[in-house]
């Protein structure tokens, strides 16, 4: 199969993008935590056609033992794309891109995790991209910090991520796969909104200094918006647990009476 993609107009005469978004609009993100039974923490993220599942195991005993550190937990991260996640089948063996992304995603989350609380352990983070549509590392990071929180791992704050890019000569927020492929630049940014510090920034393409500054500010601002949503998702989860627990205790009370 070799589908040659037709070049399409990235921005139409009304200033709207292929999927009808404005330049400064990101694709709605659907997030859910506690989606896996066995994992200590988990999250599922949908954005555009992106479907990403994240699991956290740990803090748990380090295996093999020599990988442990005496003063902190070792954070391990695997970003992986399913063979069916892309238009053409992707080999399940980790590509160089996936290995690089595993590293930068780990480094994007390291500053958030209070790893010094769990010496000699590992905290393992698995990000599985089930379907990809541009911006998977950002959605993965956003979801991973939720999964870490869901695992009850103490953190300095959540990490939120989004990308800005350049399409048809204009700065645009959160590029989709098609926009990334035909666009002129892509710049993923992750921040810890609570302290407003940058934990990941990458870029490829071509941006002037002025375009970089403008795009970077938009990305940082958007991360704060995503952060509000992350907090709401977590709160909802804990409220559900609370209701479940209270519901149970009430019913047992009823039995006692």
């Amino acid at each position: 199969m070799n589908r040659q993609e037709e070049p399409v107009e990235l921005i139409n005469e009304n200033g709207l993008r292929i999927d009808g978004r404005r330049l400064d609009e990101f694709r709605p993100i659907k997030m859910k935590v506690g989606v896996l039974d066995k994992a200590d923490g988990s999250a599922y993220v949908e954005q555009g056609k992106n479907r990403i599942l994240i699991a956290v195991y740990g803090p748990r005993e380090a295996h093999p033992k020599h990988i442990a550190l005496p003063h902190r937990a070792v954070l391990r991260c695997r970003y992986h794309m399913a063979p069916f996640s892309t238009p053409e089948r992707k080999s399940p063996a980790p590509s160089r891109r996936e290995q690089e992304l595993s590293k930068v995603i780990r480094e994007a989350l390291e500053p958030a995790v209070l790893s010094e609380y769990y010496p000699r352990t590992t905290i393992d983070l698995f990000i599985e991209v089930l379907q990809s549509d541009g911006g998977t590392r950002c959605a993965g990071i956003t979801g991973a910090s939720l999964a870490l929180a869901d695992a009850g791992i103490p953190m300095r704050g959540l990490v939120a991520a989004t990308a800005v890019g350049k399409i048809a000569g204009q700065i645009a927020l959160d590029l989709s796969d098609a926009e990334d492929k035909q666009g002129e630049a892509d710049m993923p940014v992750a921040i810890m909104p609570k302290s407003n510090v940058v934990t990941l920034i990458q870029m490829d393409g071509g941006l002037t200094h002025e375009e970089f500054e403008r795009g970077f500010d938009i990305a940082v601002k958007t991360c704060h918006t995503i952060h509000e949503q992350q907090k709401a998702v977590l709160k909802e989860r804990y409220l559900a647990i609370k209701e479940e627990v209270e519901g149970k205790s009430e019913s047992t009370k009823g039995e006692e009476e």
Partner: protein
Amino acid sequence: MSSTPHLPPVATIAQKTVVDMLAVGKRVDDRGLNDFREMKLEIGPIERACGSALINLGKTKVMVGVKVEEGEPFPDTPDEGVLTVNAELVPLASPSFEPGPPNENAIELARVVDRGIRESKAIDVKQLCVQPKRKVFVVFVDVYVLDHDGNLIDASSIASLAALLSAKMNEYEVENGEVIYRPELRTLPIQNHPVAVTLAKIGRSLVVDPSLDEEQVMSARLTVVSDKDGRICAMQKGGAEALSVEEVKQGVAIALSRAPEIRSRIMEAVKT
């Protein structure tokens, strides 16, 4: 899977010296915060390569070899030559390097160098097409780290550009899809000159071109690759800690201001 690295033990006093001196605006080797170490570029030390360069950046030594071979294009770019960058952290270069397939650090190094060359369109890949869909030239850029004293990204990026600029391949003709080489030599179609500038965050300072002593105490690093027109073509943050929004902007501005001088040094070395 990427793991929190086990850092080699470094004497506390050595770490403290770097940090304490920077707190009063000084670097252990007396450089200014935005200064590169002394740079020496040797062009063409490897005769068997199409192009090669050996860079000494302070005590860091990186050799880059360029080879050009015939190969197949990627299906989505049927009329474009192919660029392949690989980096080897050769075990003789550092006690922390081990034999084996490239680890995440080697992969990251290669991919950042690759992005700079690719995204700045340094190579006019259309000119490397022999027969669309069937045959193109593949440019292999092999980064070989020989002595690791910090800032491998910049050293590799500088040496890669120098090796590409000085690379020569045989003149050729195409007959029935076959390449017939002639004895005369030609240069590669290089049309842009990307330069990486890396900054390390140590304490509250940002320093350009960190040495290994500095890398061992840095909390994060930021690499900015810019092209000959001053456009940013690649960026990469590394390290386990964060940078403030201001530090990122400041780092980009510093990197953009330092790149032209490095670029002219490369061009000068390649000319002679």
